[in-house]
């Protein structure tokens, strides 16, 4: 099962475009062209259908354009808490029954929450698609549960936070990093929520968030698989289309104030290896429309996407080759990442684990040195071509999974992009030049827009009793 992440680089996907140049210039094109159609249901909900006749299965995926960034202080994590409560029933489908019915249909199900969105899915044999559409539409419109269920599930979410974050020093470092990068932006808060906020959630907090954001005009259904488009459209009207329409509440902009100087912090936690993460604020891609794509920010966003791929987009890319191999090795691992699309502001990450005998400061300098080298020298055509080839091949490999096609379609919708955005993005990336890489490498990696977090290892002392933030902020009411 796959978690979509707020910061995942858009995966190559979508209908085929002949690769140009390199090895892929030959006719390596999908045998069957994927067919995608998008509709608006009568109540304002979006329906996206991708026909793919790989196998007699289908994916039903509900996307709500509401995630952690739609929360306010004091209820961080409520979008995720609601995701859990969506499995707890409706007047027609009592607690536990949703999962039992999906299982009985031969289905697999799960859900995911990020800063930008919340998603739910079932993958089923295609002859069961209508059944899961009914179930999903029912809980979208009529989620309802007793408070006792909420109190138990709040304990589960606290355990989830302990598992994902409390006992994982690098996760905690990134949580602290986001809290330092962003002041006004809701990206300041962790998606799972601060432990103290989780402990203080009330059932009414969850219901408020649900009533506010789970309205048809703020949601999309993606159906992918061996389906008939008109049939799916009819079923969607009969199920999802019945939810009462309502206006999507106005969203406050919450713009992030400019950063005017480096921020730096140490994060001390039990670990053996240090870790350093650098976040440089950067522009993003707001649209793929012909006019919007020509703006300086959009052009820079495309170039930054390629820069991250040149640095770390394949085995043997620059960062690993230079910093984690050979006699001048300073790192045990390195990472560069940047996503051009998101609902909120963007950053370019550089990160790594210093090799033994090297400090985090040395690795930090070395990582920036690799960007500086591109600012000075650019990259040669073969290297640029290689990265583009990787994306093209990835686009075709991705067609092997109906599930990942559905995920990409939903993700594009959340960001306000058309269904073929991945394909369009690929075409745009083809146009990026070495000079553009030089230019962005020289402009976005200075000190003023930088936040650096360093994990400073503390030795473990197993003899000591546990005493962690988690224990101090333990939820009070436990129901058995």
């Amino acid at each position, binding site marked *: 099962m796959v*978690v*979509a992440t*707020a910061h995942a680089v858009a995966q190559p996907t979508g209908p085929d475009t002949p690769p140009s140049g*390199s*090895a892929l210039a030959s*006719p390596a094109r999908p*045998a069957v062209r994927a067919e995608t159609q998008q509709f608006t249901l009568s109540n304002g909900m979006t329906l996206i259908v991708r026909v793919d006749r*790989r*196998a007699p*299965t289908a994916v039903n995926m509900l996307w709500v354009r509401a995630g952690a960034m739609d929360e306010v202080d004091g209820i961080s994590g409520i979008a995720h808490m609601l995701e*859990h409560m969506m499995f707890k029933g409706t007047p027609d489908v009592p607690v*536990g029954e949703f*999962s039992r019915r999906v*299982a*009985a249909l*031969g289905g*697999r199900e*799960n859900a*995911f*929450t*990020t800063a930008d969105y919340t998603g739910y899915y079932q993958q*089923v*044999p295609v002859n069961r698609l209508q059944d899961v559409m009914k179930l999903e539409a029912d809980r979208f419109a009529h989620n309802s549960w007793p408070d006792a269920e909420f*109190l*138990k599930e709040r*304990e*589960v979410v606290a*355990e989830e936070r*302990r*598992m994902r974050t409390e006992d*994982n020093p*690098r996760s905690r470092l*990134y949580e602290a990093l986001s809290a330092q990068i962003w002041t006004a932006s809701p990206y300041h808060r*962790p998606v799972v929520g601060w432990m103290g906020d989780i402990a203080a959630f009330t059932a009414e907090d969850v219901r408020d968030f649900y009533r506010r954001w789970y309205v048809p005009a703020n949601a999309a259904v993606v159906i992918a698989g061996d389906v008939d488009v008109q049939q799916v459209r009819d079923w969607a009207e009969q199920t999802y289309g019945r939810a009462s329409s309502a206006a999507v509440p106005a969203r406050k902009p919450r713009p992030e104030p400019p950063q005017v100087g480096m921020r730096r912090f140490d994060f001390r936690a039990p670990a*053996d*290896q240090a870790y350093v993460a650098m976040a440089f604020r950067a522009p993003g891609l707001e649209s793929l429309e012909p006019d919007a794509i020509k703006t300086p920010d959009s052009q820079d966003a495309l170039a930054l996407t390629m820069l991250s791929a040149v640095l770390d987009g*394949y*085995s*043997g890319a620059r960062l*690993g080759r230079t910093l984690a191999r*050979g006699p001048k090795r300073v790192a*045990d691992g*390195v990472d560069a990442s940047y996503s051009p699309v998101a609902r909120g502001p963007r950053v370019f*990450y550089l*990160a790594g684990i210093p090799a*033994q005998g090297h400090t985090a400061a040395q690795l930090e300098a070395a990582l920036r040195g690799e960007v500086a080298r591109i600012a000075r020298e650019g990259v040669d055509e073969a290297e640029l*071509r290689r990265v583009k*080839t990787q994306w093209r*091949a990835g686009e075709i490999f991705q067609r*092997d999974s109906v599930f990942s096609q559905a995920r990409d379609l939903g993700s594009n919708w959340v960001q306000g992009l058309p269904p073929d955005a991945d394909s369009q993005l690929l075409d745009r990336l083809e146009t990026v030049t070495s000079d553009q890489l030089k230019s962005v490498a020289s402009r976005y990696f200075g000190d003023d827009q930088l936040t650096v977090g360093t994990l400073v290892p503390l030795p*473990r002392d*197993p*003899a*000591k*009793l*546990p005493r*962690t933030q*988690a*224990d101090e902020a333990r939820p009070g009411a436990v129901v*058995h």
Partner: protein
Amino acid sequence: MLARPSLSIGLRLLAACLAVMAATAHAALPIEHWSRPDGAEVFFVESRAVPIIDAQIDFDAGSRREPAPMAGLASVTAGMLDKGVRADGNAPPMNEDALDDAWADLGAQFGAGAGNDRFSFTLRSLADPALLARAAALAARQIGEPSFPDAVWTTERQRIAAALREAETRPGTRAARLYDKAVFGQHPYGSETTEASLQAITTAAMREFHARLRPCGAKISIVGALDRSQADQLASALLSRLKAQACAPLPAVPRVQPLALAQDIRQPFKSAQAHVYIGQPGIARADPDYFALTVGNYILGGGGFVSRLTQQVREQRGLSYSVYSSFDPALDAGAFTIGLQTRPDQAAQAVGVVREVLATFVADGPTEAELKAAKDNLVGGFPLRLDSNAKLVGNVANIAWNHLPLDYLDTWTARVEAVGVADIRAAFQRVLQPERMVTVVVGGAS
């Protein structure tokens, strides 16, 4: 590259629950099988939905065949196969940078890895014949002519040792290691890579271990947009640089021994959660009760949100985010494991609930209603096991490796349908002894 911790949250339950089921499955899937002159066996499924080719080659050279002082040898040998190839005839040597560039230019993916039983290669390429030929030729050099450069191994060894030390600071890693050791004792399934074993491993040992890879022992699974004759050419190309020599039977590996006594292992650890493992040696893949145990385990702890363990530990009591049970069938008995994480002060309660659920299930078996629900999901959801080439090649390799009949996937749902409540009860009672299990709890006070 290293993975940044995901900034997202989600997945109500860990995927581990489905691990056992994922290893199986389909209907009406024509698998062609033939033996090559060099002794390799080919298993092939033509699939033209997407213009890609997936291949997997498996050898009997997993970690169970390592010399004892060199735990980790199979795995690091696999890891070193992309660090360089020797010169051969008019083909010049290539270092790891050259190999990385060549694969990236082909837009193809190639890798090697080792588990307890198998040493495996995987290739994914676009189906275009010219590209595929180049990918196969490059793969063949990595399979057959690795150079195992000493300088690279020196730095790799440092990197792996550092990662081992880091992993030791995590309660989950410690619990898993204690568990494996207690379940398998001296058997190689419980062997553990340590800094000392890494020190014992030399590139000469890797060359010696690599020499175990011979065409006559290879199982090649191929799925994709090609025909049988192209598949045979691909198989031939992939093995073309391995030494073709006769395969003497491999020495027997000692059998996994049942546990004599229950064992309770507690390790205090300063962590937000205690990590709990409960289990014992389970079954080999060839076990006649494989289907009864697979269906039964779905009901006990393999079936996601609807399993008994998830219902009792998570849904009823809110004790954990993830709780599961799994069999890990292998050439010999892999572990039967129940795993969960919970706040340290709840660990004893969680262990109590798990033990009660398990004991009841072993004693009484499932209800008829539970069995029906399990069959509805397993049989009804069968197409989901075959809806991508990636899944297909996994299934084909499973059939090839485990000597399953070629029509295994065609009969799979019927075998599931045939399982009765009494079969499950009898199989669980034969295989599991709840009173003789290992319990590991790492976290909290002692």
